[in-house]
């Protein structure tokens, strides 16, 4: 707007009292605010999980180190995994989905705003309950009761016999609560995508982000329930004298593994598929081309979602299944590599022939492509069951899944932060700081997780609080720990950039990236009602049509 000197008296509204603002935020049902609440909550728990990782790495910097006791170390890796998956990654994913899906499909809010708020607070409370465990009463192994059974809590370690304190109970209850919250959010997202699209936006014209979050929601709905069921069974065992996993009474430890991994594997796709969504939105805009092969991208996503429910026992190759059973899961796991590879090729083809601008979001997405490629390939190695008989339960697996979750998912989440920060806050982030974050974090990431593959290959198992010298592991552990330092500093730069830019960044305007999806057609940040009037669309890139009225997309697809 042109800055005409105002001759009209400007009414300056007073800033509302802090209590009122807090009350607004606590009682909000606005998807944008809930999205931001999820994201801030997740950043806090990302910090907690990061501190736990730092403690782990300091303890492992050299053999026979005594930085923490074995009891504390076991709590650290359990809490690190549980925190990062359930209270950092999932809330980040849900937060962005909450914020973006209604905007990108031209809706005013999600289908069930109050369910949305309820789900958030349930999840939030779950995290608080989990961390309360550090302050809880005494267990058998000393002060504090934080869970120390590993994030997948294998039976019978979690039975009353072997975990007499309450650490397992905190794990169960915190995740039961956040699990119900997740299911509420998933139902909400699915219903929003199906029922709240603006006129003209058929399913085939939705942005890929909407499709992928819809798939993610479906996966949560189908996969969270097995975890809930298994945890209820564990509660029955621990408190009602049940025998689901009580091996003395004929119960089966392997049954827990099956139930857990029927949840556990789709869970990583719950995290990865929204990451793909971010890449699918950012890469086209910064390459200045539409996404290559939209229909196949949708089909591949649905295929991944579907197949991901059939691969779970590749986490159990060492358990002693029959050779037929093992072979089946090799087949399904390798099969899922095909649609995943297709997606990588489609993203590559989107960049191909483009006019690529290397702003911070794009840097993170290019790094994502490189790192996700490697992660996928180490995944194929692990899918070859005999290879997995060596590598399972070793630092090779730890390296692989961190490559996926940090190198793949977190990188695209960083990209998403930078890409949509202008929309959410109305300000531009500082590009120089963004690049510092990127290079520092990438350097640290590779220092840590590239070299982490080596101890795995050299025989180092995971979840050990110390290790023997003379096995060739020492130097690699040192390098791994050093890389963590870089990542920690880079994350601080990132958080500082967000804060600084929110307060003093340049005003961003509604469309700083010359984007093509509906969220860029409204103000930054959007008003509570999202759009002055509901948009009507005719193609997958409504803003391209507006900006290029003589050659709109709907002439071509």
């Amino acid at each position: 707007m042109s800055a005409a000197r105002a001759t009209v008296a400007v009414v300056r509204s007073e800033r509302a009292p802090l209590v009122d603002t807090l009350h607004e935020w606590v009682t909000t049902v606005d998807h944008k605010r809930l999205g931001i609440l999820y994201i801030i909550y997740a950043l806090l728990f990302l910090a907690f999980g990061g501190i736990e990782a730092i403690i782990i790495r300091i303890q492992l910097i050299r053999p026979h180190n005594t930085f923490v006791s074995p009891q504390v170390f076991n709590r650290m890796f359990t809490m690190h995994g549980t925190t990062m998956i359930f209270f950092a990654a999932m809330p980040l994913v849900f937060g962005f989905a909450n914020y973006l899906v209604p905007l990108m499909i031209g809706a005013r809010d999600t289908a069930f705003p109050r369910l949305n708020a309820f789900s958030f607070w349930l999840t939030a409370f779950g995290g608080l309950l989990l961390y309360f465990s550090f302050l809880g009463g005494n267990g058998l192994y000393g002060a504090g009761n934080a869970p120390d059974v590993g994030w997948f809590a294998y039976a019978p370690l979690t039975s009353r016999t072997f975990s007499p304190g309450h650490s397992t109970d905190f794990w169960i209850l915190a995740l039961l609560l956040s699990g119900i919250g997740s299911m509420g959010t998933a139902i909400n997202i699915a219903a929003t995508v199906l029922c709240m699209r603006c006129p003209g936006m058929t399913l085939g014209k939705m942005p890929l982000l909407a499709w992928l979050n819809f798939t993610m929601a479906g996966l949560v709905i189908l996969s969270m329930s097995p975890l809930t069921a298994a945890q209820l069974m564990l509660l029955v065992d621990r408190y009602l004298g049940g025998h689901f996993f009580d091996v003395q009474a004929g119960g089966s430890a392997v049954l827990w593994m099956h139930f857990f991994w029927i949840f556990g594997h789709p869970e990583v796709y719950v995290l990865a598929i929204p990451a793909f969504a971010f890449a699918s939105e950012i890469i086209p805009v910064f390459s200045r081309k539409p996404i290559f092969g939209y229909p196949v991208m949708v089909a591949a996503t649905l295929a991944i979602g579907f197949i991901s429910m059939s691969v779970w026992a590749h986490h159990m190759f060492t358990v002693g299944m029959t050779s037929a059973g093992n072979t089946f899961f090799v087949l399904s796991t390798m099969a899922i590599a095909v649609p995943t590879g297709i997606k990588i090729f489609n993203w590559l083809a989107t960049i191909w022939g483009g006019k690529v601008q290397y702003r911070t979001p794009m840097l993170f997405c290019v790094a994502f492509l490189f790192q996700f490629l490697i992660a996928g390939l180490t995944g194929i190695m692990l899918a070859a069951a005999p290879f997995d008989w060596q590598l399972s339960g070793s630092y090779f697996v730890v390296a692989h899944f961190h490559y996926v979750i940090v190198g793949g998912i977190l990188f695209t989440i960083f990209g998403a932060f930078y890409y949509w920060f202008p929309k959410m806050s109305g300000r531009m982030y500082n590009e120089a700081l963004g690049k510092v974050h990127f290079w520092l974090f990438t350097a640290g990431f590779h220092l840590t997780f590239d070299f982490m593959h080596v101890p795995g290959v050299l025989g180092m198992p995971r979840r050990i609080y110390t290790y023997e010298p003379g096995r060739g592991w020492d130097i690699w552990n040192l390098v791994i720990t050093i890389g963590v330092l870089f990542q920690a500093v880079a994350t601080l730069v990132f958080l500082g950039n967000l804060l600084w830019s929110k307060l003093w960044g340049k005003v961003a305007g509604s469309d700083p990236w010359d984007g093509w999806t509906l969220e860029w057609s409204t103000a930054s940040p959007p008003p509570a009602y999202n759009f002055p009037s509901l948009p009507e669309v005719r193609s997958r890139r409504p803003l391209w049509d507006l900006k290029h009225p003589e050659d709109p997309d709907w002439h071509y697809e």
Partner: protein
Amino acid sequence: MTTALISATRAAEVDRRAQSPDRALTMRILKSAVPIFCTAAAARANSAGEPLSPTNIFAPASTPADTISGLSLLVLTITGAMFVIVLCLLLWAVVKFREKAGAGPGEPAQVYGSTQVELAWTVIPVLIVTILLLATARAIASIQNAIPPPGAVEVSVIGHQYWWEYHYKKSNVVTANELHVPVSSPVHPTPTFLSLFSADTDHSFWVPRLAGKTDLIPNHPNSMWIDPRETGVYLGQCSQYCGVQHAKMLLRVYVQTRDEFDRWLEQQSGPAAASDSTIEGRRTFESTACVNCHTIRGSTATGTFGPDLTHLMSRETIGAGAALNTPANLRRWIQDPSAFKPGCLMPAMGLSDSQLDAITAYMETLR
């Protein structure tokens, strides 16, 4: 499908200078690609000479580990090739199609897809996956479906928190933590078949140079086999988190010549050596709670919760590898096991110094 449009004029508040960190990006990508694919190469290269590590999966010394190593090399080759190809394409795209400084306004050609290309990159991965699946299935079958030949040694391995119990089925020998097996030659194979059980939580038996790992799960017997072709000591450790001292549940496999092994077996099957000089230690041992957990054949101690101590001095380590088996360590261990293994299930027995001396002296006679 070419478009020759003038893009909408952009607001000036956003700096649209084209960034080109492509060279740096390229270097970073190459720098990090190197370590991953060097590890396997280095690991393999060194196995012939100076060992990189005594637990290197690429230095196999037994058929299952060989089979796995062979399959792994195939997988690494194929994935390595895919990596190189896709990486080159990525680098090319990232460098070639960056927005050049001074490029005019206007969007590039808006390409929506290409059926032929997409078909190609669907079919080729399917073929690759098929090849990998077939090779993998073969390896699985050859390892899992092996049948013990008549001369095979059979050992029952029972996992405990935090030690290993071994029963040699045909010889009535019970020992702990250090497994002795005969060397096996390809001509007359004498593999060792292990039946895996657990007395409490899940464990996993992993000696990387000999075989992949197999879990020990209570109420779920498993089995695995090894046929080491070179004598020596092979190291490993428990690889399934089993509780507080999971990290110190170490494994040692002593591969001996047939003669040495037979002699060892013979010696292990006998009762404890009797010696009058340590009668006091023996009395102390038998009258304190030691006998509730430990067995010393030929004495009144028949406890099974802890390791069999009948031939304790034939072992090089104590506490499942937590410490070397020296008199000083042994005395310290008996005094307070948590000095070596905090959280292990053997309690400090609260013995006096003289009791400790006596018991240690007694233990020292258990060859």
